[in-house]
């Protein structure tokens, strides 16, 4: 009988990759903590820059929280593929028989679980510090959960295109910030409306629609970008 092991199916492979990424990340807890720490410190920057008046802060709080979440996501998106690129595992992934689409989703999924999800869960604390009114906090968490997923997917495109570059640095920010803007617009709008007592579900629905589009299309661009970077 054949002693050759069957290659795992795409779905199974995807889950295995996901688990691998999470395990690797958990071994370096500081790196998980970095974006959260950044979030906390920048939250402190805004009152320092704008003045501590509670009503003013509360008025700007939805936008401030969303912008900081966006920037934290920006900082970490560069690292999604970098370490695997450097040690050659990315090249192996490209040679694997499993479709790149799902493998890429595994990487991005892990990235979201380690940044966006944690950011969303921790955000109520900072919302409190900026005097965001209570009903809006739930909407904030929901909008961040959906929105950061979109940000991770879009950030992955920038990461894939720049992973092979030596002088990458700021370039990824220049590339993906324009694509972050629609998410910011609707995310902060959702929270602002929640503060006013208006139901925010339409805005959350729009972000969810963007998420569907991103899940469908971003992995194609990411896969193309990875092939270009690895072959370069």
């Amino acid at each position, binding site marked *: 009988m054949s002693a050759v092991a069957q290659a795992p199916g795409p779905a199974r492979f995807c889950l295995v990759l996901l688990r691998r990424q999470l395990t690797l990340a958990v071994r370096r807890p500081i790196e998980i903590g970095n974006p959260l720490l950044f979030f906390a410190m920048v939250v402190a920057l805004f009152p320092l820059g704008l003045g501590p008046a509670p009503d003013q802060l509360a008025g700007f709080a939805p936008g401030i929280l969303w912008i900081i979440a966006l920037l934290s996501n920006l900082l970490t998106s560069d690292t999604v593929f970098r370490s695997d690129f450097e040690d050659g595992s990315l090249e192996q992934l490209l040679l694997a028989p499993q479709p790149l689409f799902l493998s890429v989703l595994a990487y991005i999924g892990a990235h979201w679980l380690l940044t966006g999800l944690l950011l969303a869960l921790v955000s109520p604390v900072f919302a409190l510090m900026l005097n965001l009114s209570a009903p809006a906090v739930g909407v904030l968490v929901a909008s961040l959960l959906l929105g950061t997923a979109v940000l991770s997917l879009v950030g992955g495109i920038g990461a894939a295109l720049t992973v092979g570059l030596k002088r990458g640095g700021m*370039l990824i920010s*220049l*590339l993906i910030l*324009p*694509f972050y803007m*629609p998410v910011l*617009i609707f995310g902060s709008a959702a929270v602002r409306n929640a503060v006013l007592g208006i139901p925010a579900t339409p805005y959350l629905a729009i972000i969810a629609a963007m998420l569907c589009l991103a899940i469908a299309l971003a992995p194609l661009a990411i896969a193309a970008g990875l092939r*270009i970077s690895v072959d370069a």
Partner: protein
Amino acid sequence: MWSFFHKLGSPPWLYRIAGTILRWLLPVTIVALCVGVTWGLLYTAPDFRQGNSYRIIYIHVPAAAVALAGYYVMAIAGAVSLIWKMKMADVAMKSCAPIGAALTFIALVTGSIWGKPTWGTWWVWDARITSMLILLFLYLGVVALYEAYDNKEAAGKACAVLTLVGMVNIPIIYKSVDWWYSLHQPASIKMTGDTTIDPSMLYPLLLMIASFYALFTCCLLMNMRAEILEREARTGWVKKLALGYRS
């Protein structure tokens, strides 16, 4: 038909044909621009509400229109280069980016200058201006990405991917910014007021728009010629061209 596409992919043929087109298109473009500018600047009546400052429309609107169209040209060239692996399409795409960025810059600056006498401020975050600003970032992103890659073939492919992602996003970005702006400024003044434009004002505007399209084509062809020479520097036909070239 097929042989046409085959020839399109040949650098020396494209170089020559571009040169031939430029020989008549460039003078025509410059004349058309001069005529359009003189017409709009000096020979049309001022707008009822905005006075003489509306004359900026004759450079703002054409620049903005061609800047947006140029992005689609760049995206199509990028797609062609990715799908059919045509190097000349890659050259076209790369040549579009700086021209598009320059035109977007003109649109933004003239729009800002127009805003000062009209609305009292140098900058208004209205939907169109904000979208133009984002378009400038998209163009500059393509330029930056191309320069960052050492391997120029990979650079072209990466820029093609980025441009296509941008193309998918432009409608989303525009609609989001439009919606966002309408929230905060219900009585938005249409920058061009083009619903009730008088024919005497319309014709010079159309001339300027056509001239700017011609301008874009000229700059694109000139950039492509320079790029082709640089890429094909080691080949026989370029060496023959350079032989005894006196500046």
